[in-house]
């Protein structure tokens, strides 16, 4: 009695667990994005064509087509550089030299940023992000740095 019950529970747990893992796995495949620095990708850009990426680097040479929201700019990190295009609203802190993460896909023509895919670095809601603030957390871009190496 009790043994069959245990078996039943074990089997249903197993089935449910497998089903969820399978669903999780398939949806993960669709939804994940690689998080890379520009130089990690641009040394062999061909490998990354068509994959969804988040690229981290410094923006430069930002140009906007007159009377539109079409932007073209470059993002560089460690001497490597990628050209990017984007249509839409950019954050206030998106300026030449600012540290950014862009989301989108890479192709032979450059990096196409998806809508809302430009993020400039961002303090937390609770921490006042004063640049000269003392304390233990003081690197320029604390959250997004250490993934480099």
């Amino acid at each position, binding site marked *: 009695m009790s043994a069959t019950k245990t078996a039943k529970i074990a089997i249903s747990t197993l089935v449910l667990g497998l089903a969820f893992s399978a669903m999780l796995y398939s949806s993960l495949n669709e939804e*994940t994005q690689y998080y*890379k620095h520009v130089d990690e990708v641009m040394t062999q850009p061909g490998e990354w064509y068509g994959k969804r990426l988040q690229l981290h680097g*410094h923006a430069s040479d930002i140009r906007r087509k007159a009377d539109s929201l079409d932007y073209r700019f470059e993002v560089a990190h460690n001497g490597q550089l990628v050209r990017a295009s984007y249509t839409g*609203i950019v954050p206030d802190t998106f*300026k030449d030299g600012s540290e950014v993460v862009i989301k989108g896909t890479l192709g032979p023509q450059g990096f196409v940023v998806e809508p809302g895919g430009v993020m400039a670095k961002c303090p937390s*809601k609770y921490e*006042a*992000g004063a640049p000269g603030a003392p304390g233990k957390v003081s690197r320029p871009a*604390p959250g997004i740095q250490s993934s480099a190496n």
Partner: protein
Amino acid sequence: MPALGTFLLLTCFVVAAYAATASVAGARRQSTRLTESGIGAFYLVTALMAVASSVIIYAFVTDSYAIKYVDRYSDAAQPLLFKITAFWGGLDGSIMFWVLLLSVFGAIAVRNSRESHRELIPYVVATIAIVEMFFLFLMVMHNNPFETYLADIPPDGQGLNPLLQNVYMVIHPPSLYIGFVGMTIPFAFGMAALATGHLDDSWLRAVRRWTMVSWLFLSLGLTLGMIWAYEELGWGGYWGWDPVENAGLLPWFTATAFLHSVMVQERRGMLRVWNMTLVILTFFLTIFGTFMTRSGVVQSVHAFGEDKELGLMFTVFMALLLVVSFGLLLYRLPLLRARHELDSWVSREAAFLANNWILLFSAVFVLFATMFPTLSESLTGERLTVGPPFFNKWMLPIGLALLLLTGVGPLLAWRKSTVENLWQQFLWPTVAALVTGVTVVALGVRVWSSGTCFAMSAFVTTTLFQEFVRGARVRQQYSGSDLLTSAVGLVARNQRRYGGYIVHLGIVLMALGFAGEGFKQEEQLLLKPGETVTVGPFTVRHDAITITQDAQKQMVTARMTAFQGSRELGTITPAKWFYNKRTDEPTTEVAIRRSFAYDLYVVLAGFDAEQQSATFHVVVNPLVNWIWAGFAILALGTLLALLPERALAIASVKVPEAAATGTTTSALLLAALLGSAAFPHVAHAQHVEGASTVVVPMSAFEREIQNDIVCMCGTCGRKRIDECTCGKAEEMRIEVAGLVKQGYTREQVLDYYVQKYGSQEPLAMPIDKGFNRLAWAVPYGLGVFGAALAGVTALRWSRKRHELEDAPAVASTEGDAWQTKLDEELRDLD
């Protein structure tokens, strides 16, 4: 004054240690005096924390910028309210606020249950005191809010981020903290029950109300976070699955699960291990959430920054927590056998079980997805991220399933539902759901998730209505009064049950609000004066850009006219404010035109003052306000369920009075909610930090080194050169760049500076070598030693007493047995 503060914190640590030791020793030796002294010490912690908190608030109010924390989060121009609330504006202060709340809650809980749960109290005191000790240890060793500048006291502070200077941020963090901290109390009682073996349901009765209060505040905190994101951040939404938000949501899931499964234990004596697990998990998740967002384990653009040391302390604490609590649970497993088994899957128990599984799964899923980037990086070395779409894809069906269960649960009978009562119960709700579903499809709604949500909402609402009407009918037969009076009386007599139903109604409204997201419409574009844009039912015309100035800031405002169809709604004025102290970080002032069906939401994203043209983000958000209204109802329901049971007696005698209290609370709550909604935008900003002064990209290595060396100009108060703005720091940065270029390693650069200045003074941290290593180890050693000492003392005290009483022990054991029996009898009578 800062010295007084630090001293108070240290004293608190010692007193808390005594409270933990003495109360446990007292319980083991059965020495009332010792236990009492432990409880006394426990109250003393509360008093001391209150004094310490007053000291820091006093420091804020009197602008004592010698204290680093005050300097960082306040300035002279800050309004008094924000000076006071800057107390919890940063990490150090928020930990202190946490301990303050915990000590206050602990004191109240102990005071309330001191007589009714006498056998549990010593262990409750010990558990809470140990948690307090952990946070006090963090503060004293790592994040002391009373840390001062040794020289060069700044004349004015840096000021609280304008982003935080608004009314939501005054109440949002405390409310979340109350929710988090409150969850410690159930945990403490659970631990006490496990430690003493008093595992009947009495500990549950002690904590039910605490869980509900904490749950309410957690919900309030989450909702305020949504309102804040919606109104202040200006990206058009309210929930972005940010790790910080998720941290608050995790314990909410498990606490909700507990509030449901606790009913099964009370009613049927089942799920006893499960309930204990949920209590432990909820507490664990409050700590884990704090850890996750504070230590930099989760990295995103929104994360708090890295702090390995803090991360380590949290990890050790969490590991101990899991080992001890689940160890105790395993040890007591034989005492936790269920009194009944599940009779049928078509029963209310089963519905609760399903609800619990789904809630727990939600928690696990959100945890997994939040930690996914970190997990993938540590497992494969490849950093993979998942975005909000991934969360939504999973949470949407999960949410719908929960909504369905909200309706199904109350319809099922305890133990087993017969086919006959299934028919009777499900008929009308199912009809309502089908009718709504067909109507929705006929109206041309093609968003399947929202359509399903509408149908299910109809189902649940009908269920709730049916419950009220049937209950009231039955009561009407007894009392002979009219239906409405009977309904009020019904609610007054079963506050928990009907309060719960009202909470469900609130959830339905919120679900409708979330479903509205499926019909969101938005447009991003550039408008010249006179040009218009139409989004959904609204048309907006850009008229002009004006620039005005006040003492604090420069304000760039777009004047626009909004129309609904051809009807003119009036002027709307989205704006950007440039605070004088932070011109790099303009704040975004969203213009929102609210109505129950749609919000028109306009953000000024960019502007060209000469041409008068501007870029706008125009969003039409349907049904958003239903979320806030739903929360008000949810809160009302919870308050009703929370009314003391004594109120029940009065309420059932004098119905009108109960109704009156009900309406006053709801009116108060609504007033509070409307008040906050109507509050003018005090200060807001887009959620981004100012561009750093670094223009040339540096290598990570160079940046790391800049972080290791402090400015040696002698006036900057030992700021690291990467953040110091004086000329000397600039010089040193160039010097470092030169050294790096020459191929110096980190060691060599540090050596270079040690030799140049003849000491380790230019190093931000002492070199981890030889004698210096000892300096690092001392605080940790002290902490471990203290804990060990406390443990040993507790053991020895209790043992001594045992040895002493060996001879007369026989008699007293017998007496004890009688005493225990008597206690149990009395408990059963409760």
